[in-house]
């Protein structure tokens, strides 16, 4: 039993692998399901209002989604392991202000250094979260709720009544979201690559797969020899680091940063992740699905605005969609459980 969990993907036909291939197939179905929904949605909207899919709007959409998709990647890793990270919005805000704020006192500062500063801030916050959750064995909901308050409080203290203003940022920094190739922003491509790498890691590396095991059954994972504490620590650290980098990108995108940057992002990201097929109790879901979930939520906002539908309906529609997504997931997982039960009944031991 333990060997199936710790081997790389595609191992020999051991008793459990039939079920594993089934779950893989369901993964892919859920992933392709959300992609299908996304494509249908875009198709319908474009049919009604062709401007939706023109190059300009596509650029708008992709750049808007970049920050959310990145955050969704980090959150996915945490949620898969049956945890949650509520502090990402505060980390983003702190990172955005501190890193972009470097340009004014140090006008010649190289941009990679600014990114490193943002990464560092995120890393520190993520490690703090990870230590408390893994070492202290305390519920991540409570810990990250607390760090949400604390980090936002630190941000407000540091920012005071100031803001980072656009004219302190060098053009090379401000152009990061704008640079594109054939109309597709470089940033979107870079983030897609990162998400692809993340998805590959989760699916094909032992430590990645162990996150799924921890999320499915923490006790069993521990008994099976998985260093759960270390894995959870890593998941939170990565989530924090990603939020830090996302903060720098946020600053490049909006160019004016005050103490409210990133407020409320955590619930949006969790919604995106859940809509994208990641189970809130852990154990299943993919980074690609989560990124598509973020893209879908962005597109819905964009579509409603482009179609001229009253903004007043946006909130209600988002909430309704989230409920729909988790209901669908529930139905799928019930079917899957039934199928697995039928299979293992036939396999024995």
């Amino acid at each position, binding site marked *: 039993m333990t060997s199936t969990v710790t081997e790389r993907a595609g191992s020999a036909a051991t008793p459990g692998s039939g079920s594993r291939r089934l779950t893989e197939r369901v993964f892919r179905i859920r992933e392709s399901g959300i992609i299908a929904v996304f494509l249908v949605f875009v198709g319908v909207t474009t049919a009604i209002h062709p401007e939706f899919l023109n190059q300009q709007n596509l650029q708008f959409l992709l750049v808007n989604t970049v920050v959310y998709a990145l955050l969704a990647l980090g959150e996915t890793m945490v949620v898969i392991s049956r945890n949650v990270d509520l502090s990402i919005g505060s980390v983003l805000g702190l990172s955005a202000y501190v890193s972009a704020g470097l340009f004014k006192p140090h006008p010649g500062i190289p941009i990679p250094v600014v990114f490193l500063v943002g990464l560092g801030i995120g890393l520190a916050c993520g490690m703090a979260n990870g230590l408390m959750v893994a070492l202290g064995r305390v519920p991540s909901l409570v810990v990250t709720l*607390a760090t949400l308050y604390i980090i936002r*409080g630190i941000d407000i203290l540091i920012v005071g009544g100031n803001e980072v203003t656009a004219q302190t940022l060098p053009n090379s920094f401000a152009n990061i979201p704008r640079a594109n190739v054939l109309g597709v922003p470089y940033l979107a491509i870079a983030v897609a690559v990162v998400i692809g790498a993340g998805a590959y890691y989760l699916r094909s590396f032992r430590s990645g797969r162990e996150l799924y095991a921890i999320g499915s059954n923490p006790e069993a994972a*521990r*008994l099976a020899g998985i*260093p759960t504490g270390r894995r959870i620590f890593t998941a939170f650290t990565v989530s924090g680091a990603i939020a830090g980098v996302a903060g720098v990108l946020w600053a490049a995108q909006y160019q004016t940063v005050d103490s409210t940057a990133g407020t409320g992002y955590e619930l949006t990201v969790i919604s995106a992740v859940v809509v994208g097929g990641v189970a809130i109790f852990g154990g299943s879901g993919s980074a690609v699905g989560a990124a598509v979930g973020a893209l879908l939520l962005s597109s819905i906002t964009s579509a409603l605005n482009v179609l001229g539908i009253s903004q*007043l309906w946006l909130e*209600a529609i988002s909430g*309704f969609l989230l409920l729909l997504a988790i209901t669908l997931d529930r139905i799928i997982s019930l079917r899957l459980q039934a199928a697995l039960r039928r299979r293992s009944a036939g396999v024995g031991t």
Partner: protein
Amino acid sequence: MERDLTARLSAAARASLRWEAGLGLLVIAIIIFGAVTSPQFLTSVNFFNTGVSSGEIAIMALPMTLIIISGEIDLSVASILGMSSALLGYLWARHWPMLAIFVMVALLGIVAGLINGLLVTRVGLPSLAVTIGTLALYRGVALILLGPNTISNFPAGYTNIGINPLPGTQIPYNVAIFVVLAVIFGIVLHFTATGRSIYAMGASPEAALFAGIRVKRVKTMLYVISGLVCALAGVLWTFRLATAVQNNGLGLELDVVAIVLLGGVSIFGGKGTLAGVVLAVIAFAALQNALLLTNFNQEATGIVIGALLLVSVFAPNAAALLHGLPRWARGRPRRAAPSP
């Protein structure tokens, strides 16, 4: 199996007792801090102000306590408050009689809670995800109802609850309502079979089911009650601020959860007491008030709340933490597993 359940519950009760004692000391410490740093802290006017500002959050914390003890969560509480405030304004602007409006708002709260409850118990969805969805859905309904409008022409008889206390005392109306509800909820939770079953289903859902407890029915009831209580909070909020606008109560849900957690209620369910939450409400409100009176930098209040929250989870675990540290650092499980 029943004995295990009983054993687990009495261990939980003992742990809670330790926690309340700590909380009680914290409240006393805060009161002393407030009294020492500001001569106005212990005045009746200040008590009134503090009560008025935190009354609705306190009221919403009561059903949240029961829900979290039962093993679930409800993040839609602030949106139900906002939605009922919006309905109140919407109907008042259309000249409905106030009594009829109260009935409609109560119905709305019940329906909202019912939706939450059914999705969690009958469809089997995780409550965290469901209530994040209904948080957006209900806030959206509030937006649709009121749009950009603000209704503020409520009769003074109602809006005076924000400035006038109960006649003959200095207690604000919403604090009085809180006290009454706290007693009711406390009796139900600690002295009835239903209350014991709530603990049971939080501690061990399967055992509770086998022990004959109707888990689904009780949980659905809890959500319905939460919806009704939050609708009441919405009415109080609207009258106190003399304003119905779509963003009433925006963002309060995390504060309510923070208070309940501070009160010693475990997020995993099965543990915690109502007395603890009452103490946490007092601590939260008193601390914010004391900080306001001392010219403390208001921007740092969040840090204090967050720190308190961390203490609330780490203190009980402190002993276990020190004990378990060496094992974790080595990365080995409790029982040695055979090498692959």
